[in-house]
């Protein structure tokens, strides 16, 4: 296994949860989220093997993967989705055994559906800032937008999301 492959393996283990969470918040369901995460890492791998060592060293992995994932989601066309390789079949999340846990998962999935239902520019801004917890500067870099635009989109997105379930204390 050469250096690039080792780096990629570390990258997958370190960022898989983050990228999957991003996919879930942007698409609203776990199956699509896994496809997005898979496509994101496949694109990352194909790019990495063509990069010079210097470029790989200077890579800001988190921001880079976020940019790729955003593009993967944007480029997904309903109906002609890339086939998900289920080599082993997706196993159910074994971590959630208790009823509380199951409820939590359902609640989270319901929230993901609502987030995924936002108009794209608000959705991306909200997800990067509040789900992925990037700073405004990092989110702006990932989106290629000015910080002010991102702030405004986050604000409008949260406003749309905020229903009767939530108090109005946070901004």
């Amino acid at each position, binding site marked *: 296994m050469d250096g690039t492959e080792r780096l990629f393996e570390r990258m997958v283990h370190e960022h898989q949860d983050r990228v*999957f969470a991003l996919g879930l918040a942007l698409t609203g369901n776990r199956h699509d989220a*896994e496809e997005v995460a898979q496509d994101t890492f496949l694109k990352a791998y194909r790019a990495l093997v063509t990069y010079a060592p210097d470029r790989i060293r200077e890579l800001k992995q988190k921001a880079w993967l976020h940019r790729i994932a955003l593009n993967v989601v944007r480029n997904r066309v309903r109906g002609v989705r890339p086939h998900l390789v289920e*080599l082993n079949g997706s196993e159910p999340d074994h971590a959630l055994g208790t009823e509380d846990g199951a409820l939590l998962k359902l609640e989270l999935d319901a929230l993901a559906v609502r987030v995924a239902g936002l108009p794209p520019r608000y959705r991306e801004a909200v997800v990067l800032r509040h789900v992925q917890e990037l700073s405004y500067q990092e989110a702006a870099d990932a989106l290629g937008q000015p910080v002010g635009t991102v702030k405004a989109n986050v604000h409008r997105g949260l406003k749309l999301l905020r229903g009767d379930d*939530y108090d109005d204390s946070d901004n």
Partner: protein
Amino acid sequence: MTTLTTDLKRLGEVKAPAGFADRLLAHVGMADSYARFDTVLGAVYVAWNRQGVSAASRAASAAEFEAWFRKDVGRQLVAADAPKDLATKIEDELQGRRRMRFDLRGLTPFEQAVLRKTREIPRGEIRPYGWVAREIGRPAAVRAVGTALANNPIPYFIPCHRVVRTDGQIGNYGGGGPEAKRSILTMEGVRLKRLEELARSGVRYQGVKTTKVFCYPTCHTGRHALEKNIVWLRDEASARAAGFRPCKVCRPAAVA
């Protein structure tokens, strides 16, 4: 009372599905996939990746196969559903109707040379360890050839069972012991009893009087010779003295 932003934060804490990383690494070719196949040889576990078939074993269980693979081959291994044509390809390969691609990365150049040479031995024929050593240009490395074949990660597919001891004894077999070696060779049409009788009487080669060519007894070029034209030869020197030359197909001796 939770707030929207803390809920969103919790959404960011979901975990990727179990096995996600392994499946992904297998997909880009950094981990191997494996499945169990029912073949002419019985149940065989076979591992593969983008380069080709990388390992095979008649392990007793999936866990045993995984442990052996990780230790011997040293890559990650993921249980998988086989691509739908793979079972047919494996069956064809084991029946000698196909040449599959193999992944021999991770083996030394010497081991790779031994295994590649071994693949050239036709079904139904056998060669001595010394033949492999001579053919790959390392005539003194007979024992090393034996070791390389004993560590063959893809037995059955790379036919290490077709390499036997120079004295005609069947020799040992990494793919399940001498008994397994016997049964596979018999299945391939090798007449072991006859070969062992020849070996016991000190005969190594079969010569054909009309062509003045001598072969290994299993070589397909000598198979149609009439019984009355066959002479049994004990070694290269006496064969050459009697005016025979080595066969160019099975190459029982270096062509002078």
